[in-house]
């Protein structure tokens, strides 16, 4: 049987650099292929090349043939009949993929085959059928505009629209990344169901290996624009055939148990052009030998449909297998020797006021009656899906927002109303609590050098030198002279941590501190935070939506939903035997279904 899609030697070039190099794979009808890789590895660019929809300024070369028809270099006019009817695509962000000025019904109707569009009533019936297929109530949804739907509903509509032309291949580019954990599981389930029902081929792009394994037959691992491994899911889980795949698998913190040391891949992802004639992974590989940098290894078939781009896989295969099974073993969680409360939040309410159109004020309750405490030396997790109020609570504690009601005490200090604090109280608060934010790119002032940023933090208290701080977070001292633009995401996050610990705060709030980082770097930062806690006795308030991270980093956890606490308790108890249905559903939505599985909500 001929493959439905053949990609041969795909190269994608931007003005001055290569984005994707030598990508080749086949896809048979009805097959499910996963493409995994960290941010910037070229997944989206590859997918866009397949549907011949590259962003302006990018050029693709090589072969992409769909059902024997070469797609690259074809004109728009010739491609159009294929699009939608033979292959389709769903994009990452459901909030932006739909035309805001068009109802969902219209979206689906315009994508239907010509014949079905002609008659009004048939079209209407068909739209209803398609909406029902993706699990939406047609009567209600068809007339709604995108802004009137939730993210999950929008993604369903987008899927229905993409499938309206009954394509034989559907490409889904991170279709769940922008969604909540629970919704994610639903959408993945839906995709799987549609794929089997229709027998169509599916390419699922994600940055999360676990998600891929749960959905796909075969997985392609991409790194810096190249494919490093191509293997069936089952085989790859069992025995990855590339050190990078192994690194990825190990870097994912397990959700089922605490590990003593989080594995990370040292260094950071290179640019595609830096690895033009060496093994892509050689700089970060512990098994690297001079031969690895001698030339660019190609993807070679090893066995049973597995291919790897590692030259030395035959020699090191054994070691890799051993590593895969031994590491990540459960560790006994250290006993918590909690002291006095450092943070006490009681009955916190926060209502956001926004002025709407025509000057009418709208109020959004963000946090309602939240109480919890963090003791000296303790690490507490704040868990909940997007919009549940986690950041709002953090901002109130930090004095960046004023609570509507309720009290917040930092040790001896009442900081419920930041505007009423005296100058010295404010100074005191500074020494008590500091923060690390999610976005490493916006966390640092781009105009100031690292040294200046840290120097400024040191003036706020603490004592010590910039060099010392840099050493503490594992950065070389000369970094002080650099501007943030010259640092990678992980390095920036280290600087952000250094700035926070400069004043030696009693409590460190981490708001999704690793959510924006690549899996291979994420573990480094988590490990650094663990170390900070260990060495300085700092309490942590750890905000995340990632249950695996909660498991690794916290002693106790508070589960939030729509601004209210639904459950709180020891992390182990909470995750292993949740009592509240919402917590249970959170735990259940981790890919793989059971909390025992080596799975996590999803990576970053």
């Amino acid at each position, binding site marked *: 049987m001929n493959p439905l899609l053949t990609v041969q030697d795909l190269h994608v070039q931007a003005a001055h650099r290569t984005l994707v190099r030598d990508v080749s794979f086949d896809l048979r009808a009805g097959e499910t292929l996963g493409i995994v890789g960290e*941010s910037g590895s070229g997944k989206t660019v590859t997918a866009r090349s397949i549907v011949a929809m590259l962003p302006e300024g990018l050029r693709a070369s090589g072969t992409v043939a769909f059902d024997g028809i070469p797609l690259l270099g074809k004109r728009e006019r010739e491609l159009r009949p294929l699009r939608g009817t033979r292959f389709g695509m769903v994009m990452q962000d459901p909030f932006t993929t739909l035309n805001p000025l068009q109802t969902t019904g219209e979206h689906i109707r315009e994508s239907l085959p010509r014949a079905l569009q002609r008659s009004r009533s048939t079209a209407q019936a068909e739209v209803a059928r398609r909406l029902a297929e993706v699990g939406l109530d047609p009567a209600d949804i068809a007339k709604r505009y995108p802004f009137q739907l939730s993210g999950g509903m929008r993604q369903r509509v987008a899927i229905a629209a993409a499938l309206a032309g009954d394509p034989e291949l559907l490409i889904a580019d991170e279709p769940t*990344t922008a969604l909540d954990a629970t919704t994610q599981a639903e959408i993945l389930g839906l995709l799987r169901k549609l794929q089997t029902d229709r027998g169509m081929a599916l390419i699922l792009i994600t*940055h999360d290996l676990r998600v891929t394994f749960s959905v796909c037959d075969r997985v392609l691992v991409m790194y810096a624009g190249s494919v490093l491994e191509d293997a069936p899911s089952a085989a790859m889980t069992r025995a990855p055939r590339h050190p990078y795949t192994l690194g990825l698998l190990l870097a994912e913190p397990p959700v089922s148990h605490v590990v003593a040391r989080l594995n990370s891949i040292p260094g950071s992802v290179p*640019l595609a052009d830096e690895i033009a004639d060496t093994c892509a992974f050689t700089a970060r590989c512990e098994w690297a030998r001079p031969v690895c940098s001698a030339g660019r290894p190609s993807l070679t078939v090893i066995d049973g449909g597995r291919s790897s781009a590692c030259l030395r896989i035959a020699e090191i295969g054994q070691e890799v297998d051993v590593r895969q099974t031994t590491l990540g073993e459960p560790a006994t969680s250290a006993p918590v020797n909690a002291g006095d409360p450092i943070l006490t939040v009681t009955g916190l309410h926060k209502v956001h006021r926004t002025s709407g159109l025509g000057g009418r004020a709208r109020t959004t309750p963000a946090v309602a009656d939240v109480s919890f405490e963090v003791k000296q030396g303790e690490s507490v997790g704040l868990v909940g899906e997007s919009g549940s109020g986690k950041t709002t609570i953090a901002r109130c504690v*930090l004095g960046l927002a004023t609570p509507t009601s309720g009290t917040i005490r930092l040790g001896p200090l009442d900081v419920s109303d930041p505007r009423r604090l005296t100058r010295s109280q*404010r100074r005191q608060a500074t020494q008590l609590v500091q*923060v690390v*934010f999610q976005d490493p790119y916006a966390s640092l002032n781009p105009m100031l050098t690292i040294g200046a940023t840290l120097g400024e933090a040191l003036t706020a208290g603490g004592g010590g030198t910039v060099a010392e701080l840099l050493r503490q977070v594992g950065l070389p001292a000369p970094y002080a002279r650099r501007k943030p633009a010259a640092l990678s995401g992980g390095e920036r996050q280290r600087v952000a941590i250094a700035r926070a610990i400069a004043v030696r705060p009693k409590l460190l709030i981490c708001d999704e501190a690793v959510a924006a980082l690549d899996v291979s770097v994420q573990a480094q930062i988590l490990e650094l935070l663990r170390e900070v806690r260990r060495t300085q006795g700092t309490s942590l308030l750890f905000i995340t939506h990632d249950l695996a991270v909660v498991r690794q980093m916290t002693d106790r956890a508070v589960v939030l939903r729509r601004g209210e606490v639904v459950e709180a308790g020891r992390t182990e108890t909470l995750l292993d035997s949740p009592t509240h249905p919402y917590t249970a559903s959170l735990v259940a939505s981790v890919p793989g279904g059971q909390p025992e599985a080596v799975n996590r909500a999803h990576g970053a």
Partner: protein
Amino acid sequence: MVAVSQVPAGRARSARRNRMPITVRLATGWLFVAVVLAVFGRRLAPFDPGEQNPLLSVSPPSGAHWLGTDQLGSDVLSEVMAGAGTALLGPLCVALGTVLLGGALGLLAGYRGGLIDSLTNRFADLMYALPGLLVIVVVIGVVGGGYWVAVAVLTVLTLPGEIRLCRSATQVQARLPYVEAARTLGLPAARIMRRHILPNIMPTVIATFLLDFVGALVSLSGLSYLGLGAPPGIPDWGALLQTGQNLLTDNPMISLVPGALIALTATSVTLLGDWLYDRYSVGGTRP
């Protein structure tokens, strides 16, 4: 959720940034000349621009007078060169005044919010509904006051746009984690505004400064063209354009050259401003 999957500021981007399009380079070149003229025009001019020779009234270009003479027999080239000063000084004052006042108010309103914010917002709302040039024409034409009152009124009318721009740029910055981190470190508001926000909104400020300058240049020279701007006897491009229009067939250079220079200068500044804006834009919308 993952909201950020940012493209790191890589080499490719900075390479693209550093290339200045030929049009912008030409524009910068002309602006350099214009600035030199504005500062030294009077001294570089071949004749004293005020020197009159009524018997040579409105003569066409010649070897001695490259652009001919005007009605009083003054050398047009010298007047144009000296006129650069007047033509650019007023707009410069407007743009400077707007940027200093508007920038400060915008920064304050954007960072502090509250009463200052609503006050400046109401003020901006009111001013936005007024066609600036007509207001100035009415004020100068009926109430009187001349050139410098026009400059003042224009500054007041340009302020709202500037305030809004700086305000929204500030708001964008103020919500960024690096500012919040600075606040968490307990740094004083003044320091945060000066050291953290200001440098980051500076590109916006500079770009709007240039665009404000263009607006003022066009308005003020227009006002002079209507006879309400630069006082008689002061060489000015707009005024030359107007007086020369009557004598177009005798010596077209009197209006042609100043008209072309106004358009050229305005276009050049816009080109430069746009380029800067696109290059360093940090948020907020173009006025």
